[in-house]
């Protein structure tokens, strides 16, 4: 097959050399986002409390944290919907205070709220978005066609946005963030509220984007999402960064290889049990009679428990997950508000 009968540079496919629209960027050695002592308050409420982080170009970087941790505020400072309160923030090498317009021209945004234009069709939403980047309807047409293909809604182009399912709307949000061929896409909870199939479809879109070398910066509540997509992540709580690293390293560091989940019997004394395991347990979480103990070898740990002395209703051995890390570092209590 020759290049001429293949539509050049379908989004998500291997790009043809020289095609500007779909060029895949090699991970450059600069950082996509760099924050130093970054802070932001709304009135007397401190949302972000002097954080330092660096997002290397070309990777998927995750922000995890409970509600109100400051994730969304941080994202908004990056994409220009909140002014930098204090400290330094550089996006693609540019100063977020002074070069807001220039930064916005080179990034894409998928906000937490679905804010598609309901009076326009799917295709018109993309064409209109391109015009906000100074690209007229004629010039954006090939790009819009590709993005409709990319987001698997090519057959819905002329439908009004209201007619789309939640998952399709979300994919359209991702497609819309790509009209300007951004180097960095900021996604604030991209899959919240989606069913598993729709979530998987969004993940696939993001994985294709990642392969093209686009830097992804996402916030999420879903640990599975973070494990699957993120090369590096950090956990925020109450405006501060609690920890940062690769998902695997964070699990090893804060939880261990495996976890033993025990549903303790009524007469079981948890603290005495933990005393007998001291030294072999990497750490533990106790919550309403449910005891989770982290260890290198949870099976071995389970066998060593004297079950007559410490009766348990159930015992499960599993791999430690990011969820364990998250709950250990941010606590189990419910966060209300925000």
């Amino acid at each position, binding site marked *: 097959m020759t290049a001429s009968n293949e539509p050049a540079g379908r989004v998500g496919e291997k790009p043809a050399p020289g095609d500007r629209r779909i060029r895949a960027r090699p991970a450059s050695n600069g950082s996509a986002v760099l924050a130093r002592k970054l802070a932001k308050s*709304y009135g007397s409420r401190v949302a972000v409390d002097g954080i330092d982080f660096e997002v290397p170009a070309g990777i998927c970087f995750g922000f995890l944290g409970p509600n109100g941790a400051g994730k969304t505020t941080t994202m908004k400072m990056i994409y220009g919907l909140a002014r930098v309160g204090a400290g330094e923030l550089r996006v693609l090498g540019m100063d977020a205070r002074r070069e807001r317009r220039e930064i916005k021209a080179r990034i894409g945004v998928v906000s937490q709220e679905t804010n598609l234009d309901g009076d*326009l069709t799917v295709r018109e939403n993309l064409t209109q978005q391109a015009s*906000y980047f100074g690209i007229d309807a004629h010039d954006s047409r090939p790009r819009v066609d590709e993005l409709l293909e990319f987001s698997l809604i090519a057959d819905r182009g002329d439908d009004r946005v209201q007619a789309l399912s939640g998952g399709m709307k979300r994919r359209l949000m991702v497609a819309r963030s790509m009209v300007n061929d951004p180097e960095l896409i900021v996604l604030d909870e991209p899959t919240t509220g989606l069913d598993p199939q729709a979530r998987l479809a969004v993940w696939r879109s993001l994985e294709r984007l990642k392969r093209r070398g686009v830097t992804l910066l996402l916030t999420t509540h879903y640990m599975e999402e973070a494990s699957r997509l993120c090369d590096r992540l950090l956990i925020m709580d109450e405006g501060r960064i609690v920890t940062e690293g690769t998902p695997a390293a964070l699990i090893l560091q804060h939880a261990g290889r495996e976890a033993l989940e025990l549903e303790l019997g009524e007469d079981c004394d948890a603290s005495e049990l933990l005393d007998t395991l001291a030294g072999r347990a990497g750490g533990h979480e106790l919550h309403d009679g449910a005891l989770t103990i982290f260890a290198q070898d949870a099976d071995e740990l389970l066998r060593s428990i004297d079950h007559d002395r410490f009766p348990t209703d159930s015992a499960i051995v599993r791999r430690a997950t990011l969820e364990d890390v998250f709950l250990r570092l941010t606590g189990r209590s419910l966060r209300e508000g925000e």
Partner: protein
Amino acid sequence: MAMSYEPGYAGLGDRLHIRDLIPAPRLAAAVWRRNAQVFSKLWKGALLPTFLDPFFYLLALGFGLGTYIAHGINGVPYKEFVAPGLIASAAMWSSAFETTYNVYFRMNELRLYDNVLSTPVEPQDLVAGDIAWSSTRATVYGIVVLIVVAAVGLVSSPWAILIPPFVLLGGMCFSVIGYTFTSLIPKIDLYSYFFTLGITPMFLFSGIFFPFNQLPGWVEVVAWFTPLYHLVEITRGLATGPDAVQILIHTMWLAVVTALLFPIPVRALRARLVP
């Protein structure tokens, strides 16, 4: 009772550098285009009745009441006196609705501006594009009224052909006033003040339905401070035989007020949407 503010309400906001007040034409045009596209889809349905408003006034007052005003006003038959003013008021009503409820809805309910402002579009481009659209729409309404009143013979001067660009300017002035109100109000309920204490009295007391020359001098002085008065003077002048100097003065008034007010909604919108 304490006033419950809309989320994000931020008042007037900080002073802006002149650079942050000058819109980028291409991006303002993109904002204009979106609004025009939505209007072109909706006008045949929901918006059609709004075209009819001025004609009911023309029928009731011009042809109805006017029958009892035997000698007309200053020698002009009453319906011919009223008709050009209705071109101006159609523009005012259109601008007032567009920059209050429509802008409010796009900004606070649909959250469309959050998306627009996360592209290279900045608040000054957004406000300029919205005002450009609102005044375009006002001009469309004004032209519809102009065509109809001309068709039924209520226009006596060929200069009336120049009315549309002045309606565009007047529309800009009404729009920037409405936009200023929208960007500053803490909650949607306050629009009733805008319409009942601002737009409706202006409609009734700007010289559309009766002239000022028999009334105490202060009435005209008050009217002079309203944009509708100036646009009515322009449209009536052009429809009945213009005085160039007067038209220049009224035009200057509308242009200066528009330019002076423009920074306020830009500042307030930035404070509100980019805290």
